[in-house]
Protein backbone atom coordinates (compact mmCIF):
# COMPACT_ATOMS: atom_id res chain seq x y z
CA UNK A 1 0.00 0.00 0.00
CA UNK A 2 1.55 3.27 -1.07
CA UNK A 3 1.72 6.06 1.41
CA UNK A 4 1.80 9.76 0.70
CA UNK A 5 3.80 11.72 3.24
CA UNK A 6 3.91 15.49 3.28
CA UNK A 7 6.86 17.32 4.80
CA UNK A 8 5.47 20.65 5.85
CA UNK A 9 5.90 23.36 8.45
CA UNK A 10 4.09 26.62 7.76
CA UNK A 11 7.21 28.57 8.59
CA UNK A 12 9.87 29.01 5.92
CA UNK A 13 13.49 28.03 6.19
CA UNK A 14 13.12 25.43 8.94
CA UNK A 15 14.44 22.46 7.00
CA UNK A 16 11.59 21.00 4.94
CA UNK A 17 13.57 20.46 1.77
CA UNK A 18 16.64 19.27 3.66
CA UNK A 19 14.43 16.85 5.57
CA UNK A 20 12.47 15.71 2.50
CA UNK A 21 15.69 14.90 0.68
CA UNK A 22 17.18 13.09 3.65
CA UNK A 23 14.00 11.22 4.51
CA UNK A 24 13.35 10.07 0.96
CA UNK A 25 16.95 8.98 0.50
CA UNK A 26 16.78 7.12 3.79
CA UNK A 27 13.62 5.24 2.84
CA UNK A 28 15.05 4.33 -0.54
CA UNK A 29 18.27 3.09 1.03
CA UNK A 30 16.17 0.69 3.09
CA UNK A 31 14.80 -0.82 -0.08
CA UNK A 32 11.53 1.06 -0.57
CA UNK A 33 10.69 2.55 -3.95
CA UNK A 34 10.44 6.24 -3.08
CA UNK A 35 9.54 9.36 -5.04
CA UNK A 36 10.10 12.84 -3.70
CA UNK A 37 8.11 15.66 -5.32
CA UNK A 38 8.95 19.36 -5.12
CA UNK A 39 5.74 21.36 -4.66
CA UNK A 40 7.49 24.71 -4.50
CA UNK A 41 6.60 25.73 -8.04
CA UNK A 42 8.58 28.76 -9.10
CA UNK A 43 11.09 28.57 -6.26
CA UNK A 44 12.32 25.05 -6.67
CA UNK A 45 15.10 23.88 -4.40
CA UNK A 46 14.72 20.13 -4.07
CA UNK A 47 16.66 19.45 -7.26
CA UNK A 48 19.56 21.58 -6.00
CA UNK A 49 19.65 19.92 -2.59
CA UNK A 50 19.64 16.54 -4.25
CA UNK A 51 22.29 17.48 -6.78
CA UNK A 52 20.18 16.78 -9.87
CA UNK A 53 19.60 20.33 -11.07
CA UNK A 54 21.48 19.80 -14.30
CA UNK A 55 19.39 16.75 -15.15
CA UNK A 56 16.00 18.47 -15.12
CA UNK A 57 14.31 18.23 -18.50
CA UNK A 58 10.61 18.07 -17.66
CA UNK A 59 8.96 18.99 -14.38
CA UNK A 60 5.85 18.47 -12.23
CA UNK A 61 3.83 21.15 -14.03
CA UNK A 62 4.71 19.69 -17.44
CA UNK A 63 3.30 16.37 -16.28
CA UNK A 64 0.12 17.96 -14.89
CA UNK A 65 -0.44 19.81 -18.13
CA UNK A 66 0.18 16.71 -20.20
CA UNK A 67 3.24 18.21 -21.84
CA UNK A 68 5.32 15.24 -20.82
CA UNK A 69 4.85 11.84 -19.31
CA UNK A 70 5.67 11.13 -15.70
CA UNK A 71 8.49 8.83 -16.77
CA UNK A 72 10.09 11.60 -18.77
CA UNK A 73 10.01 13.98 -15.81
CA UNK A 74 11.11 11.63 -13.02
CA UNK A 75 14.84 11.73 -12.36
CA UNK A 76 16.40 8.53 -11.12
CA UNK A 77 18.98 9.14 -8.41
CA UNK A 78 22.43 7.84 -9.28
CA UNK A 79 23.62 7.24 -5.73
CA UNK A 80 20.66 5.46 -4.15
CA UNK A 81 18.62 2.73 -5.79
CA UNK A 82 14.85 3.10 -5.65
CA UNK A 83 14.99 6.89 -5.33
CA UNK A 84 13.26 9.17 -7.84
CA UNK A 85 12.87 12.93 -7.88
CA UNK A 86 10.08 14.92 -9.52
CA UNK A 87 11.30 18.50 -9.75
CA UNK A 88 9.11 21.61 -9.76
CA UNK A 89 8.95 24.17 -12.49
CA UNK A 90 11.13 27.21 -12.08
CA UNK A 91 9.42 29.42 -14.62
CA UNK A 92 5.84 29.01 -13.57
CA UNK A 93 4.13 29.54 -10.22
CA UNK A 94 1.78 27.77 -7.87
CA UNK A 95 -1.33 28.69 -9.84
CA UNK A 96 -0.25 26.01 -12.27
CA UNK A 97 -1.16 23.37 -9.68
CA UNK A 98 -4.66 21.99 -9.38
CA UNK A 99 -6.23 19.16 -7.40
CA UNK A 100 -7.06 16.96 -10.38
CA UNK A 101 -3.58 17.27 -11.86
CA UNK A 102 -1.82 16.55 -8.59
CA UNK A 103 -4.15 13.65 -7.89
CA UNK A 104 -3.49 12.09 -11.24
CA UNK A 105 0.29 12.31 -10.80
CA UNK A 106 0.08 10.74 -7.36
CA UNK A 107 -2.18 7.98 -8.62
CA UNK A 108 0.20 7.26 -11.46
CA UNK A 109 3.08 7.00 -9.01
CA UNK A 110 1.06 4.60 -6.89
CA UNK A 111 0.19 2.52 -9.94
CA UNK A 112 3.89 2.47 -10.78
CA UNK A 113 4.66 0.61 -7.59
CA UNK A 114 6.04 3.42 -5.45
CA UNK A 115 5.94 2.53 -1.75
CA UNK A 116 6.39 6.07 -0.48
CA UNK A 117 5.61 9.40 -2.09
CA UNK A 118 7.24 12.25 -0.20
CA UNK A 119 5.79 15.70 -0.89
CA UNK A 120 8.16 18.57 -0.17
CA UNK A 121 5.86 21.45 0.70
CA UNK A 122 6.65 25.10 0.20
CA UNK A 123 6.33 27.48 3.13
CA UNK A 124 3.04 29.19 3.89
CA UNK A 125 -0.57 28.11 4.01
CA UNK A 126 -1.70 29.05 0.53
CA UNK A 127 -2.07 27.05 -2.62
CA UNK A 128 1.35 25.39 -2.90
CA UNK A 129 1.36 24.22 0.70
CA UNK A 130 -2.28 23.21 0.43
CA UNK A 131 -1.69 21.10 -2.67
CA UNK A 132 1.25 19.39 -1.01
CA UNK A 133 -0.75 18.38 2.05
CA UNK A 134 -4.11 17.66 0.44
CA UNK A 135 -3.44 14.06 -0.56
CA UNK A 136 -1.26 13.15 2.41
CA UNK A 137 -1.80 10.08 4.56
CA UNK A 138 0.89 11.12 7.00
CA UNK A 139 2.61 14.38 7.77
CA UNK A 140 6.03 15.28 9.08
CA UNK A 141 5.78 18.72 10.63
CA UNK A 142 9.21 20.30 10.67
CA UNK A 143 9.68 22.75 13.52
CA UNK A 144 12.57 24.83 14.76
CA UNK A 145 12.82 25.33 18.52
CA UNK A 146 11.69 28.89 18.13
CA UNK A 147 8.38 30.57 18.93
CA UNK A 148 7.27 31.66 15.47
CA UNK A 149 8.06 28.28 13.99
CA UNK A 150 6.03 26.55 16.69
CA UNK A 151 3.09 28.88 16.14
CA UNK A 152 3.17 28.32 12.38
CA UNK A 153 3.45 24.56 12.81
CA UNK A 154 0.39 24.69 14.99
CA UNK A 155 -1.44 26.52 12.23
CA UNK A 156 -0.47 24.02 9.58
CA UNK A 157 -1.57 21.18 11.85
CA UNK A 158 -4.98 22.80 12.06
CA UNK A 159 -5.18 22.99 8.30
CA UNK A 160 -4.06 19.38 7.92
CA UNK A 161 -6.77 18.17 10.23
CA UNK A 162 -9.54 20.20 8.70
CA UNK A 163 -8.82 20.57 4.99
CA UNK A 164 -6.90 17.57 3.83
CA UNK A 165 -8.66 14.94 1.74
CA UNK A 166 -8.38 12.41 4.54
CA UNK A 167 -10.00 14.91 6.91
CA UNK A 168 -12.78 15.65 4.44
CA UNK A 169 -13.53 11.95 4.40
CA UNK A 170 -13.70 11.81 8.17
CA UNK A 171 -10.24 10.37 8.85
CA UNK A 172 -7.10 11.71 10.50
CA UNK A 173 -3.74 12.43 8.94
CA UNK A 174 -1.04 10.77 11.05
CA UNK A 175 1.17 13.54 12.41
CA UNK A 176 4.87 13.40 13.31
CA UNK A 177 6.86 16.20 14.90
CA UNK A 178 10.38 16.64 13.57
CA UNK A 179 12.43 19.20 15.46
CA UNK A 180 15.36 20.56 13.47
CA UNK A 181 18.31 22.84 14.33
CA UNK A 182 18.19 21.75 17.94
CA UNK A 183 21.01 22.85 20.22
CA UNK A 184 21.00 21.05 23.57
CA UNK A 185 23.52 23.54 24.99
CA UNK A 186 21.24 26.46 24.30
CA UNK A 187 18.27 24.57 25.67
CA UNK A 188 20.12 23.93 28.91
CA UNK A 189 21.21 27.53 28.97
CA UNK A 190 17.54 28.53 28.87
CA UNK A 191 17.86 30.31 25.52
CA UNK A 192 16.04 27.82 23.40
CA UNK A 193 12.72 26.01 23.62
CA UNK A 194 13.19 22.42 24.70
CA UNK A 195 11.68 19.46 22.90
CA UNK A 196 9.34 19.04 25.87
CA UNK A 197 8.15 22.64 25.53
CA UNK A 198 7.44 22.13 21.85
CA UNK A 199 5.64 18.86 22.43
CA UNK A 200 3.51 20.46 25.10
CA UNK A 201 2.38 23.18 22.76
CA UNK A 202 1.87 21.05 19.68
CA UNK A 203 0.65 17.80 21.27
CA UNK A 204 1.80 15.49 18.49
CA UNK A 205 4.19 12.51 18.71
CA UNK A 206 7.89 13.28 18.24
CA UNK A 207 9.58 11.36 15.46
CA UNK A 208 13.02 12.85 15.90
CA UNK A 209 15.34 15.70 16.78
CA UNK A 210 17.98 16.86 14.31
CA UNK A 211 20.82 18.77 15.93
CA UNK A 212 22.12 22.02 14.48
CA UNK A 213 25.04 21.04 12.29
CA UNK A 214 27.41 22.66 9.87
CA UNK A 215 27.26 19.53 7.75
CA UNK A 216 23.79 20.52 6.52
CA UNK A 217 25.23 23.49 4.66
CA UNK A 218 28.00 21.33 3.26
CA UNK A 219 25.43 18.83 2.11
CA UNK A 220 23.35 21.46 0.27
CA UNK A 221 26.43 22.86 -1.38
CA UNK A 222 27.56 19.48 -2.59
CA UNK A 223 24.10 18.34 -3.66
CA UNK A 224 24.17 15.25 -1.45
CA UNK A 225 21.34 14.76 1.05
CA UNK A 226 22.89 15.04 4.52
CA UNK A 227 21.74 11.53 5.44
CA UNK A 228 24.47 10.23 3.14
CA UNK A 229 27.14 11.80 5.35
CA UNK A 230 27.72 8.98 7.82
CA UNK A 231 29.95 11.10 10.04
CA UNK A 232 27.44 13.92 10.42
CA UNK A 233 25.31 13.99 13.55
CA UNK A 234 22.45 15.48 11.56
CA UNK A 235 22.78 12.71 9.00
CA UNK A 236 22.71 10.06 11.70
CA UNK A 237 19.72 11.70 13.34
CA UNK A 238 17.86 11.59 10.01
CA UNK A 239 18.68 7.89 9.72
CA UNK A 240 17.15 7.40 13.17
CA UNK A 241 14.03 9.24 11.99
CA UNK A 242 13.65 6.90 9.03
CA UNK A 243 14.05 3.87 11.27
CA UNK A 244 11.49 5.17 13.74
CA UNK A 245 9.09 5.90 10.92
CA UNK A 246 9.43 2.28 9.81
CA UNK A 247 8.56 1.07 13.30
CA UNK A 248 11.85 0.67 15.13
CA UNK A 249 12.11 1.98 18.65
CA UNK A 250 15.27 4.05 18.85
CA UNK A 251 16.14 6.39 21.71
CA UNK A 252 16.75 10.03 20.86
CA UNK A 253 20.36 10.98 20.26
CA UNK A 254 22.12 14.34 20.27
CA UNK A 255 19.62 15.87 22.69
CA UNK A 256 21.87 16.18 25.73
CA UNK A 257 24.44 18.92 26.10
CA UNK A 258 27.95 17.55 25.90
CA UNK A 259 29.91 17.41 29.12
CA UNK A 260 32.43 20.16 29.39
CA UNK A 261 35.77 18.42 29.17
CA UNK A 262 38.57 19.56 31.39
CA UNK A 263 41.92 20.43 29.86
CA UNK A 264 43.55 17.07 30.54
CA UNK A 265 40.51 15.13 29.43
CA UNK A 266 40.66 16.96 26.15
CA UNK A 267 44.34 16.12 25.78
CA UNK A 268 44.11 12.48 26.67
CA UNK A 269 40.57 11.65 25.45
Amino acid sequence: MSKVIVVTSGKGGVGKTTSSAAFAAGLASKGYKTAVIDFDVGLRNLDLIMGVERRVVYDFVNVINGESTLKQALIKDKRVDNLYILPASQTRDKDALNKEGVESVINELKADGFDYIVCDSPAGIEKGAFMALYFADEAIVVTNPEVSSVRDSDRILGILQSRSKVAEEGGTVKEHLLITRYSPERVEGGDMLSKEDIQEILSIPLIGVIPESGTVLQASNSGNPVIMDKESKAGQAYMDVVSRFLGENIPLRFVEAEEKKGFFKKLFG
Partner: protein
Amino acid sequence: MQLKGEMSMLNVLHIQDNDVSEICSKLEQKRDEAPQFFLQSPIVLDGSELSGNALEFDFSALKTGLLDLGFIPIGVRNFPPAANNIIRESGWAIMRDQQQTPRTAENKIETTEKSEPATPETVEEASQTKDNKPENQANTAVESNRSDIRSAMTVDRPVRSGQQVYAANADMTVLAPTSAGSEIMADGSIHIYGALRGRVLAGARGNESARIYCQSLQAELIAIAGRYQLLDESDTTLKGKPAMIRLEGEKIVIEAL
Protein backbone atom coordinates in the same frame (compact mmCIF):
# COMPACT_ATOMS: atom_id res chain seq x y z
CA MET B 1 -21.76 30.13 -3.94
CA GLN B 2 -21.41 29.53 -0.21
CA LEU B 3 -23.75 30.53 2.55
CA LYS B 4 -21.64 30.93 5.64
CA GLY B 5 -22.71 31.63 9.19
CA GLU B 6 -21.03 34.59 10.76
CA MET B 7 -21.29 36.20 14.11
CA SER B 8 -21.16 39.94 14.16
CA MET B 9 -21.54 42.56 16.79
CA LEU B 10 -24.52 44.71 15.91
CA ASN B 11 -25.36 48.17 17.10
CA VAL B 12 -28.90 48.13 18.43
CA LEU B 13 -30.69 51.44 18.62
CA HIS B 14 -33.32 51.40 21.34
CA ILE B 15 -35.81 54.21 20.96
CA GLN B 16 -38.14 55.50 23.63
CA ASP B 17 -40.03 58.25 21.86
CA ASN B 18 -40.97 59.33 18.37
CA ASP B 19 -38.69 62.35 18.08
CA VAL B 20 -36.72 61.31 14.99
CA SER B 21 -34.76 64.52 14.62
CA GLU B 22 -33.62 64.34 18.25
CA ILE B 23 -32.59 60.73 17.75
CA CYS B 24 -30.61 61.65 14.66
CA SER B 25 -28.85 64.55 16.28
CA LYS B 26 -27.78 62.37 19.21
CA LEU B 27 -26.61 59.73 16.79
CA GLU B 28 -24.59 62.33 14.98
CA GLN B 29 -22.83 63.19 18.23
CA LYS B 30 -22.18 59.54 18.92
CA ARG B 31 -20.86 58.99 15.47
CA ASP B 32 -18.49 61.91 15.73
CA GLU B 33 -17.07 60.52 18.96
CA ALA B 34 -15.86 57.44 17.18
CA PRO B 35 -16.30 57.81 13.45
CA GLN B 36 -14.04 54.91 12.56
CA PHE B 37 -16.20 52.58 14.55
CA PHE B 38 -19.63 53.92 13.68
CA LEU B 39 -19.39 54.79 10.04
CA GLN B 40 -20.82 52.04 7.87
CA SER B 41 -21.86 50.09 10.92
CA PRO B 42 -25.05 48.06 10.83
CA ILE B 43 -27.96 49.32 12.95
CA VAL B 44 -30.92 47.34 14.19
CA LEU B 45 -33.85 49.39 15.44
CA ASP B 46 -35.41 47.99 18.58
CA GLY B 47 -38.86 49.15 19.64
CA SER B 48 -39.26 47.28 22.92
CA GLU B 49 -38.84 50.44 24.96
CA LEU B 50 -40.94 52.67 22.78
CA SER B 51 -43.41 54.54 24.89
CA GLY B 52 -44.95 56.40 21.98
CA ASN B 53 -47.26 54.94 19.39
CA ALA B 54 -45.39 52.78 16.93
CA LEU B 55 -47.96 53.55 14.26
CA GLU B 56 -46.99 57.20 14.47
CA PHE B 57 -43.28 56.58 14.26
CA ASP B 58 -41.70 57.96 11.10
CA PHE B 59 -39.66 54.95 10.02
CA SER B 60 -38.85 56.46 6.63
CA ALA B 61 -37.42 59.59 8.13
CA LEU B 62 -35.25 57.63 10.52
CA LYS B 63 -34.00 55.39 7.72
CA THR B 64 -33.05 58.38 5.61
CA GLY B 65 -31.47 60.05 8.61
CA LEU B 66 -29.38 56.99 9.41
CA LEU B 67 -28.21 56.64 5.84
CA ASP B 68 -27.27 60.31 5.73
CA LEU B 69 -25.24 59.89 8.88
CA GLY B 70 -23.36 56.99 7.41
CA PHE B 71 -25.01 54.13 9.28
CA ILE B 72 -26.45 51.07 7.59
CA PRO B 73 -30.05 50.36 8.61
CA ILE B 74 -30.41 46.60 8.76
CA GLY B 75 -33.84 45.99 10.18
CA VAL B 76 -36.27 46.52 13.03
CA ARG B 77 -37.46 44.26 15.78
CA ASN B 78 -39.73 44.20 18.81
CA PHE B 79 -42.35 46.48 17.31
CA PRO B 80 -46.03 45.63 17.61
CA PRO B 81 -47.33 43.61 14.64
CA ALA B 82 -49.87 46.33 13.92
CA ALA B 83 -47.01 48.48 12.66
CA ASN B 84 -45.70 45.88 10.23
CA ASN B 85 -47.27 47.41 7.14
CA ILE B 86 -45.93 50.87 7.86
CA ILE B 87 -42.53 49.41 8.57
CA ARG B 88 -42.46 47.49 5.31
CA GLU B 89 -43.58 50.48 3.31
CA SER B 90 -40.78 52.54 4.73
CA GLY B 91 -38.30 50.03 3.42
CA TRP B 92 -37.11 48.63 6.74
CA ALA B 93 -36.79 44.85 7.07
CA ILE B 94 -38.60 43.18 9.94
CA MET B 95 -36.30 40.95 11.96
CA ARG B 96 -37.14 38.36 14.58
CA ASP B 97 -38.02 39.75 17.99
CA GLN B 98 -35.57 39.19 20.79
CA GLN B 99 -35.71 39.63 24.52
CA GLN B 100 -33.83 42.42 26.22
CA THR B 101 -31.00 42.47 28.69
CA PRO B 102 -32.07 44.95 31.37
CA ARG B 103 -28.90 47.00 31.19
CA THR B 104 -29.47 48.28 27.69
CA ALA B 105 -32.36 50.61 28.55
CA GLU B 106 -31.08 53.77 26.87
CA ASN B 107 -32.11 55.91 23.99
CA LYS B 108 -28.74 55.77 22.35
CA ILE B 109 -26.06 53.36 21.29
CA GLU B 110 -24.07 52.44 24.33
CA THR B 111 -20.39 52.98 24.30
CA THR B 112 -17.90 52.48 27.05
CA GLU B 113 -14.78 54.55 26.69
CA LYS B 114 -11.86 52.33 27.48
CA SER B 115 -8.43 52.22 26.01
CA GLU B 116 -8.33 48.49 25.51
CA PRO B 117 -8.48 47.06 22.01
CA ALA B 118 -11.88 46.08 20.69
CA THR B 119 -13.31 42.63 20.45
CA PRO B 120 -13.28 41.57 16.82
CA GLU B 121 -16.35 42.77 14.99
CA THR B 122 -16.81 39.84 12.72
CA VAL B 123 -15.84 36.29 13.30
CA GLU B 124 -15.25 34.36 10.12
CA GLU B 125 -14.82 30.71 9.45
CA ALA B 126 -11.39 29.13 9.69
CA SER B 127 -8.73 29.79 7.08
CA GLN B 128 -8.66 33.57 6.48
CA THR B 129 -6.16 35.52 8.50
CA LYS B 130 -7.92 37.82 10.89
CA ASP B 131 -7.32 41.49 11.28
CA ASN B 132 -6.96 42.02 14.98
CA LYS B 133 -5.92 45.65 14.98
CA PRO B 134 -7.32 47.58 17.90
CA GLU B 135 -10.21 49.84 16.99
CA ASN B 136 -12.39 52.06 19.07
CA GLN B 137 -14.22 49.78 21.36
CA ALA B 138 -17.97 49.84 21.78
CA ASN B 139 -19.79 47.58 24.11
CA THR B 140 -22.70 47.07 21.80
CA ALA B 141 -25.89 45.70 23.21
CA VAL B 142 -25.61 41.96 23.05
CA GLU B 143 -29.14 40.77 23.49
CA SER B 144 -29.66 37.83 25.72
CA ASN B 145 -31.01 34.86 23.94
CA ARG B 146 -32.53 32.75 26.63
CA SER B 147 -33.17 29.74 24.44
CA ASP B 148 -32.61 26.42 26.11
CA ILE B 149 -29.20 24.86 26.19
CA ARG B 150 -29.96 21.67 24.34
CA SER B 151 -26.86 19.57 24.12
CA ALA B 152 -23.14 19.80 24.62
CA MET B 153 -20.69 20.00 21.78
CA THR B 154 -17.55 17.96 22.32
CA VAL B 155 -14.20 18.54 20.68
CA ASP B 156 -11.65 15.81 21.28
CA ARG B 157 -8.71 17.10 19.25
CA PRO B 158 -6.50 20.07 19.96
CA VAL B 159 -7.93 23.32 18.65
CA ARG B 160 -5.11 24.75 16.61
CA SER B 161 -4.02 28.30 15.95
CA GLY B 162 -6.36 29.90 13.44
CA GLN B 163 -9.22 27.48 14.10
CA GLN B 164 -12.55 28.45 15.54
CA VAL B 165 -15.14 26.24 17.11
CA TYR B 166 -18.62 27.43 18.03
CA ALA B 167 -21.26 25.59 19.98
CA ALA B 168 -24.60 27.12 19.03
CA ASN B 169 -27.26 26.90 21.75
CA ALA B 170 -25.05 24.55 23.67
CA ASP B 171 -22.19 24.10 26.09
CA MET B 172 -18.78 23.29 24.72
CA THR B 173 -16.43 20.66 26.08
CA VAL B 174 -12.88 20.42 24.78
CA LEU B 175 -10.89 17.33 25.70
CA ALA B 176 -7.53 18.60 24.46
CA PRO B 177 -5.49 21.76 24.77
CA THR B 178 -6.30 24.84 22.75
CA SER B 179 -3.54 26.76 21.04
CA ALA B 180 -2.65 30.42 21.08
CA GLY B 181 -4.47 32.02 18.19
CA SER B 182 -7.51 29.72 18.39
CA GLU B 183 -11.05 30.73 19.28
CA ILE B 184 -13.54 28.75 21.33
CA MET B 185 -17.08 30.09 21.42
CA ALA B 186 -20.30 28.81 22.86
CA ASP B 187 -23.73 30.15 23.65
CA GLY B 188 -23.49 28.20 26.90
CA SER B 189 -20.56 27.40 29.14
CA ILE B 190 -17.16 26.19 28.07
CA HIS B 191 -15.20 23.39 29.71
CA ILE B 192 -11.63 22.73 28.70
CA TYR B 193 -9.93 19.62 30.01
CA GLY B 194 -6.51 20.91 29.12
CA ALA B 195 -4.64 24.13 28.71
CA LEU B 196 -6.66 27.10 27.54
CA ARG B 197 -4.43 29.25 25.40
CA GLY B 198 -6.40 31.12 22.81
CA ARG B 199 -9.48 33.26 22.99
CA VAL B 200 -12.54 31.97 24.80
CA LEU B 201 -16.03 33.45 24.50
CA ALA B 202 -18.84 31.94 26.53
CA GLY B 203 -22.46 33.05 26.56
CA ALA B 204 -21.86 34.31 23.06
CA ARG B 205 -25.46 35.39 22.53
CA GLY B 206 -25.87 37.05 25.87
CA ASN B 207 -26.23 34.28 28.44
CA GLU B 208 -24.70 35.96 31.48
CA SER B 209 -24.74 32.83 33.60
CA ALA B 210 -22.35 31.03 31.27
CA ARG B 211 -19.04 30.05 32.80
CA ILE B 212 -15.61 28.99 31.63
CA TYR B 213 -13.63 26.17 33.21
CA CYS B 214 -10.11 25.11 32.31
CA GLN B 215 -7.21 23.09 33.69
CA SER B 216 -4.55 25.65 32.94
CA LEU B 217 -5.44 29.28 32.40
CA GLN B 218 -3.21 30.73 29.70
CA ALA B 219 -5.90 32.39 27.63
CA GLU B 220 -5.30 35.49 25.58
CA LEU B 221 -8.80 36.92 25.84
CA ILE B 222 -11.76 35.88 27.98
CA ALA B 223 -15.32 36.96 27.30
CA ILE B 224 -18.69 36.15 28.80
CA ALA B 225 -21.87 37.56 27.28
CA GLY B 226 -19.98 40.29 25.50
CA ARG B 227 -17.94 41.54 28.47
CA TYR B 228 -14.31 40.75 27.92
CA GLN B 229 -10.92 40.90 29.54
CA LEU B 230 -7.38 40.36 28.37
CA LEU B 231 -5.68 37.93 30.70
CA ASP B 232 -2.53 40.01 30.76
CA GLU B 233 -4.50 42.96 32.08
CA SER B 234 -6.01 41.05 34.95
CA ASP B 235 -4.22 40.66 38.27
CA THR B 236 -5.21 37.07 38.83
CA THR B 237 -2.78 34.67 40.48
CA LEU B 238 -4.28 31.78 38.60
CA LYS B 239 -2.32 32.05 35.37
CA GLY B 240 -1.29 28.56 34.42
CA LYS B 241 -3.57 27.01 37.02
CA PRO B 242 -7.03 25.43 37.01
CA ALA B 243 -9.60 28.19 36.95
CA MET B 244 -13.28 28.93 36.75
CA ILE B 245 -14.41 32.19 35.22
CA ARG B 246 -17.80 33.79 35.60
CA LEU B 247 -19.53 37.09 35.21
CA GLU B 248 -20.45 39.09 38.27
CA GLY B 249 -22.49 42.06 37.11
CA GLU B 250 -20.23 43.65 34.54
CA LYS B 251 -17.02 42.21 35.87
CA ILE B 252 -15.19 39.07 34.80
CA VAL B 253 -14.29 37.11 37.92
CA ILE B 254 -11.58 34.45 37.87
CA GLU B 255 -11.60 31.91 40.68
CA ALA B 256 -9.69 28.76 41.54
CA LEU B 257 -11.24 25.57 40.35
